[in-house]
């Protein structure tokens, strides 16, 4: 429902259409570049309509299709498991921090916030996860490091709980005899679908886009590679050939359409998540308001 008036609605649509164009046109450019022949790209650069059509880039990727499909499977698996775990742990952490009376609340909030600023570095993290937890070359390498709970998500969720869950609602639950856990599950969560969707989305995107975990921890089990790791590897192969052809016999005369390939790879990385996202958007609706309080 609009309260701002019809003119604003029209204004909103115009602005959003323009913004959408700036987002879609580059995607179109990616798509057409991936379907343009390598020669044409090198001679004439990029354009919105290919001068010379070619499926060469996709043919090269088609050859690796088994690997690509496997990487997709892994990504979807890791993202699902990771996001659900992240959502659970984050909610369990954020809810107590939002309860104003909790002793030590500021201390724990600070402890969470501190992790956003200070970082021990690549080597200490690696040594700990590998030597103490033995996650190297296992599926857990995709789930556990860094992404399982993020201080940013905790703080944002805590802020949401503090501002959007009225104290009266919580009071009402307490008077009804509900413990903290009951309150969380039956009262708070239904009111919080927007923030739950948000954190699920942010965490899902983080897992989907992550390539660092695979890079650090998957050495022998490259069948656990996510799509980002695999695509990085394909791009680097193309780069390697392009840049090292001048210096060694390592490439033995194979031409790889390197620019077009990078575009094709970018397209492959984008398309699936664009298809999944609309399903997540269903959560962006306001939660059920408990009518009894609003008297």
């Amino acid at each position: 429902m609009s309260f701002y008036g019809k003119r604003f609605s029209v204004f909103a649509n115009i602005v959003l259409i323009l913004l959408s164009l700036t987002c879609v046109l580059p995607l179109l450019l990616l798509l057409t570049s991936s379907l343009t022949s390598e020669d044409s790209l090198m001679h004439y650069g990029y354009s919105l309509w290919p001068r010379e059509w070619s499926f060469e880039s996709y043919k090269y990727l088609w050859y690796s299709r088994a690997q690509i499909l496997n990487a997709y499977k892994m990504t979807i698996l890791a993202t699902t498991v990771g996001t659900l775990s992240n959502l659970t742990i984050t909610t369990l952490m954020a809810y107590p921090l939002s309860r104003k009376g909790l002793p030590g609340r500021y201390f724990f909030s600070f402890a969470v916030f501190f992790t956003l600023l200070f970082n021990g570095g690549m080597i200490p993290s690696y040594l700990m996860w590998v030597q103490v937890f033995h996650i190297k070359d296992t599926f857990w390498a995709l789930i556990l490091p860094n992404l399982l709970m993020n201080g940013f998500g905790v703080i944002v969720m805590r802020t949401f709980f503090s501002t959007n869950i009225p104290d009266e609602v919580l009071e009402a639950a307490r008077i009804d005899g509900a413990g903290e856990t009951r309150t969380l599950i039956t009262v708070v969560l239904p009111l919080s679908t927007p923030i739950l969707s948000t954190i699920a989305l942010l965490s899902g995107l983080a897992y989907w886009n992550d390539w660092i975990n695979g890079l650090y921890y998957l050495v022998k089990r490259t069948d656990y590679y996510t799509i980002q790791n695999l695509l990085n590897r394909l791009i680097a192969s193309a780069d390697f050939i392009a840049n090292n052809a001048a210096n060694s016999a390592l490439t033995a005369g194979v031409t790889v359409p390197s620019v077009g390939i990078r575009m094709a790879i970018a397209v492959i990385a984008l398309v699936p998540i664009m298809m999944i996202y609309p399903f997540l958007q269903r959560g962006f609706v306001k939660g059920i308001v408990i009518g009894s309080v609003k008297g």
Partner: protein
Amino acid sequence: MQSAFKGLRRKLKRYMPLYIMMLPGLAYIIVNNYIPLAGLQLAFKKFKYAKGIWDSPWNGIKNFTYLFKTGDAWVIIRNTLGYNLIFIILGTIFAILVAILLNEIHLKKVQQVYQTVVLIPYLISYVIVSYITYALLGESNGMINNSILVPLGLQPASFYTDPKYWPYILTTVQLWKTFGYSSIIYFATIIGIDKAYYEAAVVDGAGTWKQITSITLPMIKPVIITLTLLSIGRIFYSDFGLFYQVPMNTGLLYDATNTIDTYVYRGLLETNDVGRASAAGFIQSVLGFLLVLGTNAAVRAIEKDQALF
């Protein structure tokens, strides 16, 4: 004394379920974040692989000098802070604007389409963004020179050899890439605002602008403050992809594109010094932290509940 103790015990008993809820999260940040913090000592050590983190010899502050011994020290600090300030201010305004506009779309399907589309830039990696930028700004083949400047009779601009354009270019690229993602959180908050407030405002005869400034903005103020404080904490860090990939690592543009992170990367490329890299991160963290403490204290003085901690 006894009764105070008893009071505390009663409180703990009441809140015990909450502490138990926090256990998984706390365990995780101890394992994932706090234990590896022991690695911060590497900023003051000369890391010897065979000796490991604990037994490597101490080094005093020798790992920090390379950041200041360069004539570029001022340039990289100015660039990092300057760009981040602009990004925080413009980025917040833009994200809120988009969130408000999104909320105004009546048809759910259309709204969802816009939401999906504005997220696309976030999903495109900076390497690809650098190709798109080149397609626009290239001197001989770029769209701006070919399709706009030359047909109008103007001189083609050489974007990749003159640093003066780049503050604008990088800011535009960064906003384009992140506005969809940043607007998500604001959007989630805005749709949570009780419609009753708006109904009352309409009854009182308030127009669009008045509604935005007296209802929407105040209601999302806590989120704005939180997100801004978090950004301030990272104000000495920069996005490597933006400052290295998009200008295609062109030397002539360093005055406008070199930040602390790119300087550290280029400087350490040959020596791969773990201690020096750690020292750079240490300074960035400590300075950002002090800044946040200061800003947070200021916020707490004005409005106690909105402070981060």
